[in-house]
């Protein structure tokens, strides 16, 4: 198909991911990483460093004393919170723009991603997952394919809508049918282009369970369910709406009850407002 070729050209044109991002991803995926590893990476990025320190000194954290360095920030907030902050901040540059093909105004794809990541963090904690940081990061990045597919969805939206309404397609299936490539598959291609780990690439590529064997994969299941929960709140919603398939077996596999899911939605949507407030001041 002609458009697939055009899309791949767009991927090659994509600005390279900042070095700090790849290093943080590597650290986030390594359970043996230490505080100094992450501080070492962040201090070489002046923008991230200054916004992190500014956030720490904001009224939001109400810390007893002034924070002056990345190391102090990690000590006070904890390693995971600092990694979350850096990831969310860095990725706002990619996800923060408007994506009108998906009906997303400025900031909405990013808000959707942050909301998904907060849902995922809560689910992973609830289940005592060993790879919480990996799951958080994957949830934040999973829709990266939309930033390029947006332009192609824009010209195909009527055909896509039609397949959903008349032929029971999901939005992803309709993207694949009409454009030749869907946003999850394209996300996988971008992940490879940016040298993400094979594990991260797999989750991004299958976050809508394109390959049904992903239903058996723990991290993919959590990310998938987190996105369902995020859709339910409507935060950062687009024209794709909730038109994605629901697999009850994911909840069974993760042993998430309906009460758990409700708790997650309640907690993460509260937490979402806190995070947005914090980011708006940095």
């Amino acid at each position, binding site marked *: 198909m002609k458009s697939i070729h055009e899309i791949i050209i767009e991927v090659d044109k994509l600005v390279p991911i900042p070095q700090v991002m790849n290093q943080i991803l590597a650290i986030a995926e390594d359970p043996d990483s230490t505080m100094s590893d992450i501080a070492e990476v962040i201090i070489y990025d002046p923008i991230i460093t200054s916004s992190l320190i500014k956030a720490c000194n904001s009224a939001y954290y109400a810390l007893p004393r002034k924070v002056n360095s990345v190391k102090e920030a990690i000590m006070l907030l904890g390693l995971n919170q600092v990694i979350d902050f850096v990831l969310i901040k860095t990725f706002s540059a990619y996800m923060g723009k408007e994506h009108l093909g998906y*009906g997303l105004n400025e900031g909405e794809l990013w808000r959707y991603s942050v909301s998904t990541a907060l849902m995922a963090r809560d689910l992973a904690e609830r289940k005592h997952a060993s790879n919480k940081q990996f799951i958080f990061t994957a949830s934040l990045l999973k829709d990266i394919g939309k930033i390029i597919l947006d332009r192609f969805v824009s010209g195909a939206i009527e055909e896509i809508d039609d397949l*959903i309404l008349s032929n*029971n397609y*999901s939005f992803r299936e309709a993207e694949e049918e009409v454009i030749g490539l869907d946003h999850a598959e394209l996300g996988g291609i971008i992940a490879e282009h940016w040298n993400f780990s094979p594990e991260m690439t797999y989750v991004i590529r299958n976050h809508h369970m394109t390959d049904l064997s992903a239903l058996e994969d723990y991290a993919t299941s959590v990310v998938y369910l987190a996105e*369902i929960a995020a*859709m*339910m*709140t*409507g*935060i950062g*919603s687009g*024209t794709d*709406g*909730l*038109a*994605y*398939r*629901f697999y*009850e077996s994911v*909840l069974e596999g993760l042993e998430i009850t*309906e*009460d758990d*899911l*409700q*708790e997650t*939605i*309640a907690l993460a*949507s*509260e937490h979402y*407002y806190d995070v947005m407030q914090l980011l708006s001041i940095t």
Partner: protein
Amino acid sequence: MQIIIGPAQMHIENTRDVILASTSLGSGVGLAAYDPDANIGGILHFLLPSSANNKYRAKKNPFLFADTGISAFLEQMYQHGVRSHGLKLVAAGASHNLNQGTPYDMAQRNCLAVKSILAGLKLTTAYEDFGGSFYRILRIQNGYIYVEVPGHGEKKV
């Protein structure tokens, strides 16, 4: 001026010069109430059907849940001098994923919750719009309540 009501939030205002609008309604439900005499409007945007297993959280934020949210919302409307007989009510939302069924269909339960709570209070809605796999936005503007489906028009009530 426009005031946005996000998930688990509620807002009441004199709407003479103010527009009230919900963020996109997913599986949650938006309830808009408008008193034309007093020009007072309010929108509640709740996410979950019942606070029964979650009393602590409901105490912190009643607007998360249908039961605690609707009663706190209406109580505050009445405190603003609104009377129930002139009140125009519109409810919308409760969208769901494809092939989403029980026991995880919170949208369905949110929809049933708002219907039964309003019926229990002997209140009727002027318009309801539930279901589907798309988002809606509730808005109160210039004396009317609107249910908008972005990209697909809106209904004026």
